[in-house]
C-alpha cells in the first residue's frame, strides 16, 4: 500500500478513535446526547462534560501522542539508532525539571512555559556539547548526559521540597496522566505541539539523505547542523508542551515509529507524519481504555499502561521479524 494511503488510513483511524472516545467516560451519556453536547444543545452539565472534559481530553491525548510519535521518528531517523527516543535524549527529563521548578517556587501558572523553556535549554545544551561534531553520536551522548543531569536535579528539588506531599505527587505525575486535561491546556499546548510537529516534518527530506551517512549527506548539500537544530527545537516544543500537561508518558516515542515502519515500510521522511498520527491514535485509544476501565478508586496511569501494552507488542514484533 502506498504511503499516502497509509497516511489516510492512520489519519482516519485517529479521527474515529477521537470521536469514539467522546462516548466513553465515568458518566453514562446516551449517544444522541453526546452529539448534541458537542454543539452545546444538550443540558448544561452534559454540555460541560462533553465540551470541557471529554473533548479537551481527547484532543490533548491526540496532541501529546502526535508530539511523542513525531519526535521519536525524527530522532531515530537522525541518529540512525533504533533505540533513540525523546525520553532517552533527555527532552522529557528537562521538561519535567522545568515543571517541577515552577511548582517548587509556587507559580503553577508557569508550568507550561517552564517545561518548554527547560526543554529548549536542554536542547541548546545538547547542541552546544555536540557542537564539535554535529550529528548522531555526539547528540546521543550529550542527550543522555543532559537527561541524567536534569533527572538528578529534579530529584534534589523534590528532596528539598517544603511540601510534605511533594514526593508522592511527583511519583504520580511521573506515571503520566491526562485526568486533569481542560480546554485551557488544549489552547496552549495545541499550537506549540503543532509548531513542533511542523519543524519535525520539515526535517524529513534531510533524514532520507542522512541515511547515507553524514559525510555523504553533507557532500550532497545537506547541512547536518541545521537539520539538527530543526529536530532539537521541534522535539523541545512537542515534548515540553506534552510533559507540561500530561506528565511523563514514555515509550510511545520509542515503539510507535518501529511499529509503523514495520507495517508500512515508509521511508524516514514519511515516517514522521505517520508516527505523529500513529502516536495520536495510540494515546487516544489507551486513554479511552483507561477511562472505560477505571473505577472510583485509584485511576490507572497513562504512562504505566502505555508501557504495559507497548512493550509486549514490541517484543512480539521483534520475535516475528527474526
Amino acid at each position: 500500500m502506498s504511503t499516502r494511503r497509509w497516511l489516510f488510513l492512520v489519519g482516519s483511524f485517529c479521527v474515529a478513535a477521537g470521536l469514539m472516545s467522546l462516548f466513553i467516560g465515568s458518566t453514562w451519556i446516551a449517544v444522541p446526547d453526546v452529539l448534541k453536547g458537542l454543539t452545546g444543545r444538550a443540558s448544561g452539565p452534559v454540555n460541560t462534560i462533553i465540551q470541557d472534559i471529554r473533548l479537551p481530553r481527547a484532543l490533548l491525548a491526540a496532541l501529546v501522542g502526535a508530539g511523542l510519535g513525531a519526535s521519536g521518528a525524527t530522532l531515530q531517523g537522525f541518529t540512525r539508532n533504533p533505540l533513540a527516543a525523546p525520553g532517552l535524549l533527555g527532552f522529557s527529563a528537562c521538561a519535567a525539571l522545568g515543571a517541577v521548578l515552577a511548582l517548587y517556587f509556587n507559580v503553577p501558572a508557569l508550568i507550561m512555559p517552564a517545561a518548554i523553556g527547560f526543554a529548549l535549554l536542554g536542547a541548546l545544551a545538547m547542541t552546544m556539547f555536540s557542537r564539535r561534531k554535529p550529528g548522531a553520536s555526539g547528540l546521543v551522548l550529550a542527550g543522555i548526559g543532559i537527561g541524567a543531569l536534569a533527572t538528578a536535579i529534579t530529584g534534589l528539588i523534590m528532596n528539598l521540597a517544603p511540601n510534605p506531599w511533594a514526593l508522592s505527587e511527583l511519583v504520580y505525575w511521573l506515571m503520566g496522566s491526562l485526568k486533569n486535561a481542560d480546554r485551557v491546556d488544549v489552547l496552549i499546548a495545541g499550537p506549540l505541539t503543532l509548531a513542533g510537529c511542523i519543524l519535525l516534518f520539515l526535517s524529513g527530506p534531510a533524514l532520507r539523505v542522512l541515511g547515507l551517512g553524514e559525510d555523504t549527506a553533507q557532500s550532497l548539500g545537506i547541512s547536518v547542523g541545521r537539520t539538527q537544530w530543526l529536530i532539537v527545537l521541534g522535539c523541545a516544543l512537542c515534548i515540553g508542551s506534552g510533559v507540561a500537561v500530561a506528565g511523563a508518558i514514555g515509550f510511545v516515542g520509542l515503539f510507535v515509529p518501529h511499529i509503523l515502519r514495520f507495517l508500512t515500510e515508509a521511508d524516514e521522511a514519511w515516517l514522521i507524519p505517520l508516527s505523529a498520527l500513529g502516536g495520536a491514535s495510540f494515546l487516544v485509544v489507551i486513554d479511552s481504555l483507561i477511562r472505560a476501565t477505571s473505577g472510583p478508586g485509584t485511576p490507572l496511569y497513562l504512562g504505566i499502561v502505555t508501557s504495559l501494552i507497548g512493550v509486549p507488542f514490541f517484543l512480539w514484533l521483534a520475535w516475528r521479524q527474526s
Partner: protein
Amino acid sequence: MIDLKNISVRYGRKTVVDDVSVTANAGQFIALVGPNGSGKSSLLKAVAGLLPHDGATSLPSSRTDRAKQLSYLAQNCTAPDHRNVEEIIALGRTPFLGPLSKLSEADQSAIDSAAKACETYQYFGREFGTLSGGEQMRVHLSRALATDTPLLLADEPTTALDPYYQISLMNILRASADAGKTLIVALHDLKLAERFADRIWVMQAGRLVANEPAEKALSEAMLHDVFRVTLSGEIID
C-alpha cells in the same frame, strides 16, 4: 578542472595535510596514493568541504553550490538495508531537488543513465540489503554518478571488493573520465592506479611529493622512499 592552493588540514597540533597545491584538468583520472596515514582521506574531505582547512579550492564555497559541482564517495559508504536500490541512487539528485523532493524527467534520466553505466539498473526493485558487497559498491557509485557533476572524489572505493568488482569499478571510473569527468580517487592498490589512471599524485606525511603521469610515477625510487618496498615486493626495514 579543479585548482587546489595551499591546502592544509590540522587536527589540533597535528598537521595531516601540509600545504598541498596542485591542479587537476577536466577528463583526467587521478589516482591519489600514499602509505596509510599520509593524508589522502583528509585531502579528499577537505576538497569536498567536509573538513575545515587552510588554503583555497576553485570550487564554490557555498555548500549547496558545491554539491552540484562535486560528488563524494566516502571510504565506508553505508545505506539503509531496507531501502530500494533506485531510491538510494535517486538520493544522488538531492542537490537539484526542490522542497517537495519530486523527481523531474531530467532527474530520472540522470538516475537511469548512471544506473546503466554501473550495471545496477537490473537491481531496481530490490532492497539494498539483499545485494553483495560488490553490488552495493556499484550502487553507491551509481548514486555518485547520478548527480552528474564535473568532479568525482572517491576514497578507496575498491577496498573489500574481490578482483572482479575491483576491475569492473575501475572500468566504470575510466569510462567516466573518458566522457569528460575529472576524477580524484584515493587508492591503495598501486597496480590498479598505474593501469587505469592518467596521473598519479603521491602523498607522504601530509605533503604531495609527486605529481606524475601514471606510467612514470611508480619508480623504484618512489617505492623505496615513500612505500618502503622494492619493485619485487620485498619490504625494506
